[in-house]
């Protein structure tokens, strides 16, 4: 039964790849991609897309981690509830709206896009950092304090490693949302692969549309795998075994 299911699964996968290949040929995607005047443009847009994602994710990770850590310190802990409520509300704002609002304040171009994407990606990272550190059992921290660790040492050697799994989940969510939203940043003039998608929709040019949509999808899937890999490196072995 199980063997049969595995076989059907593989067969279906092959069939899907076959159909996708035929579709790619029929819609002219292959021709479009091999056009010597077109593929440098696609690569340029891809690099632009990666650039937007990389810069905004760097900002978001630094700020999000920082905010999460500060909010779990003793002095600021009582503000954590209210801050998380605001973050929760912020997350209901659609990504397109965040980009559009950034445009109406900062104008068009790369700057508002990076700003909006950073702000939007901070939310999941900060929330998960906070949740992760809060979930570290108090007994661990007490034990660390009893061993004479300074607060900074407790943070880096007890709290962060124990919270790392949750933090990386937040990072993964932020990264995937970021890649998808960066596609929309074309609308406020920042370029990226969204250029191909929106132009393709407007002109009903399927090959152009797919040349944008497929790399973005692959990028998101690769980013998902990358986050897994990061978890493998950053989460300490003992925790990985227990979890």
């Amino acid at each position, binding site marked *: 039964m199980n063997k049969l299911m595995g076989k059907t699964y593989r067969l279906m996968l092959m069939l899907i790849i076959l159909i996708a290949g035929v579709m790619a040929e029929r819609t002219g995607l292959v021709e479009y991609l091999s056009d010597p005047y077109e593929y440098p443009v696609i690569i340029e847009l891809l690099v632009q897309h990666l650039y937007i994602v990389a810069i905004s994710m760097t900002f978001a990770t630094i700020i999000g981690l920082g905010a999460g850590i500060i909010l779990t310190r003793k002095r600021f802990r009582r503000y954590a509830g209210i801050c998380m409520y605001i973050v929760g509300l912020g997350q209901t704002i659609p990504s397109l709206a965040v980009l*559009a609002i950034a445009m*109406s304040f900062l104008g068009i171009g790369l700057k508002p896009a990076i700003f909006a994407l950073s702000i939007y990606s901070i939310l999941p990272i900060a929330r998960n950092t906070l949740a992760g550190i809060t979930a570290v059992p108090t007994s661990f921290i007490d034990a660390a304090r009893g061993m004479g660790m300074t607060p900074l040492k407790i943070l880096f050697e007890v709290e962060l490693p124990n919270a790392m799994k949750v933090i990386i989940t937040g990072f993964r969510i932020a990264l995937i949302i970021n890649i*998808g939203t960066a596609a929309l940043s074309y609308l406020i003039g920042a370029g990226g692969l969204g250029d191909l998608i929106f132009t393709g929709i407007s002109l009903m040019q399927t090959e152009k*549309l797919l040349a944008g*949509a497929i790399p973005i999808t692959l990028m998101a899937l690769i980013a998902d795998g990358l986050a897994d890999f990061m978890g493998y490196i950053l989460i300490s072995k003992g925790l990985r075994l227990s979890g």
Partner: protein
Amino acid sequence: MSTIQFIIDNYAQVLFLSWEHIWIVGLALMIATVIGVPLGIFITGHKNLASRVLNGANILMTIPSIALFGIMLPILALVNLGLGKVPAVIALVLYSQLPIIRNTYTAIKNVPGPLVDAARGMGMNRWELLKEVQIPLATPIIIAGLRTAAVMNIGIAAIAVYIGSGGLGVYIQQGIDRVYPEMIMSGAILVSLLAIIVDGFMAMLERLATPEGIKLQRNILR
């Protein structure tokens, strides 16, 4: 202030677009529930299938929304449905699958074993067990999944305006094109407001769907 003025001036259109937005999201959510909940229940009995279905739904969720619209467009264009409300609803249904299936699956899995054993001992068959014990206990968690899906879908439906679905995204789209900040702001505010209201409504539904016994138990434990 001028944003509020804009909304007041165009209240008829605002109402119409909000209704359109709610309609798209609501329809998608209904279809997604009809597909997702039975699927979630079905895979609780098949462990191998469960991991595959959940993985598949996870991959679907990873695909950025605008890319999904883009990939679906040429496929649906074969049956002349490339643009408009239909592809938008299909995309929203696909995106809702992960939260709904995952929550149904975990909820049914997490029904305590002794309860299931007791029900079986009382002579219930599989269907009765599902109807009388597992589904009532799982309903709050299933509704929590619907809540996640609904809030997410309201945001994605705003993007779907670029494939001609209508809804409140129209204000954002046209506001960007005309560089009309009041229009953008009113679109953004209305969509967010809609998401917050739906979130609150679903939270209420979640509380209502919790069986009395569980509420009592929680109160005692507290």
